[in-house]
């Protein structure tokens, strides 16, 4: 069949033959990469499931992070409250001092 073709058609056929092996190889390679990816994802989820099973009842990493965060928030709020309290005390002191001064003036 090839000898019946013109040079242009032969060129097209040769290029399609290139596409045949390039395309097939590319599809299988991409699929191979995806398969490997799925295998890795499945391994990770299997391991994490196993870890969770083995450490059932123990606090998880997210529990620990949550606890740390809550502690951090608590400390920060305590500091804030202490600051506010100190400010308020200073205010009260100032007010008392002012009243005292006024009282002294009147006397």
């Amino acid at each position: 069949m090839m000898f019946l073709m013109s040079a242009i058609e032969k060129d097209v056929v040769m290029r399609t033959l290139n596409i045949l092996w390039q395309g097939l190889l590319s599809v299988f390679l991409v699929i191979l990469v995806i398969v490997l990816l799925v295998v890795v994802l499945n391994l990770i989820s299997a391991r994490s499931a196993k870890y969770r099973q083995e450490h059932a009842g123990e606090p998880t990493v997210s529990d620990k992070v949550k606890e740390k965060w809550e502690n951090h928030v608590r400390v920060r709020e305590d500091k804030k409250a202490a600051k506010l309290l100190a400010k308020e005390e200073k205010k009260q002191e100032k007010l008392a001092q002012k009243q005292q001064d006024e009282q002294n003036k009147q006397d």
Partner: protein
Amino acid sequence: MDELGFLIEGIAAIKWYHAVMWVIGFLMIFLAIKFKMEPTLLLPMGFGAILVNIPFSGVLNGEDGSFGILDVLKTVGLDTGEIFPLILFIGIGAMMDFGPLLSNPKLFFFGAAGQIGIFFTIVLAALVGFGLNEAITIGVIGTADGPTSITVANSLLSGTDSAYLISAITVCAYSYMALVPVIQPAVIKLTTTKKERMIKMEYNPKSVSKGTRIAFPILVTLISGLIAPASVALVGCLMFGNLIRECGVLGSLVDTASNTLSNLVTIFLGITVAAGMLGEQFLTLNTLKVMALGLFAFVFDTFGGIALAKFINIFAKKKINPMVGAAGISAFPMASRIVQKLGLKEDPSNHLLMHAAGANVAGQISSVIAGGILMAIAGI
């Protein structure tokens, strides 16, 4: 009586090709209703074929500059960025459960093998005289995936002298998808023995974590996008649909995408595809060649999966039913249903559906990747 002459203007303008296209339209509607062959596509396409082949049809743009609904839908939904097929892909992604595939990833290779027909068809199309881009788009019919066929055909042929082939390729792709229940059983029976068809496969699904289900669509989009950037629209829409399904927080969107949106787009897509079925352009020798090559692609795709399963069986202890390989094409979920039906026919206790569904989903992903790779090879 001359004043009433307009009443017979349409009748007088009927040509032989109009009549032939009406018969084709009636045949499509008949197949859709009588044999329930992909009625969501064949019925709108059949009716559309009749609509556009009525002389001076008002559904097409007029010579006086008036707009016709089907031409407008075609411009908006197919020619401009392939919006209809891509939106449909979101719906398909939302319908797909990758679970059986993720729990048995080796089924992915059947999806890859199910694309073999595309590449052999490209060579054959070049041998029968089509140009390179024409041959590629004809080969893509073998993806058994309408949206991918439309996207690749539009990308490679739109605005060229070969643009007339887009309609034939689109119609051919959707018609053969509808004819999968006829084509596949014949190929399976011709290429497998009864003994092979009776092979039982155990189904022991491993649980797939939610994290894997969520990470999969994102990572596949990244991988295929980096390898074949042209495929991002196709893969991205499919995987976006799947991501909204698997994330577990968008129930109402999943419901809309997989039902309302899909149905809406399917109605428009079927009838819009028919806008290209104008008798005078459609009934040509090239359309017949495209039809024959499309059939070849479908047959070889099915054979590709079967051949891979037979090859694996030479080495594997646990044999694979070759019919599962045949399901590695994109026609989802028809191909897997056919395999299940054929399996039950040979042995009423042989349930292959879940294996076949896995291979079928792999075929869907592989076909989109193959389309993207072909666009990359063609330099888009």
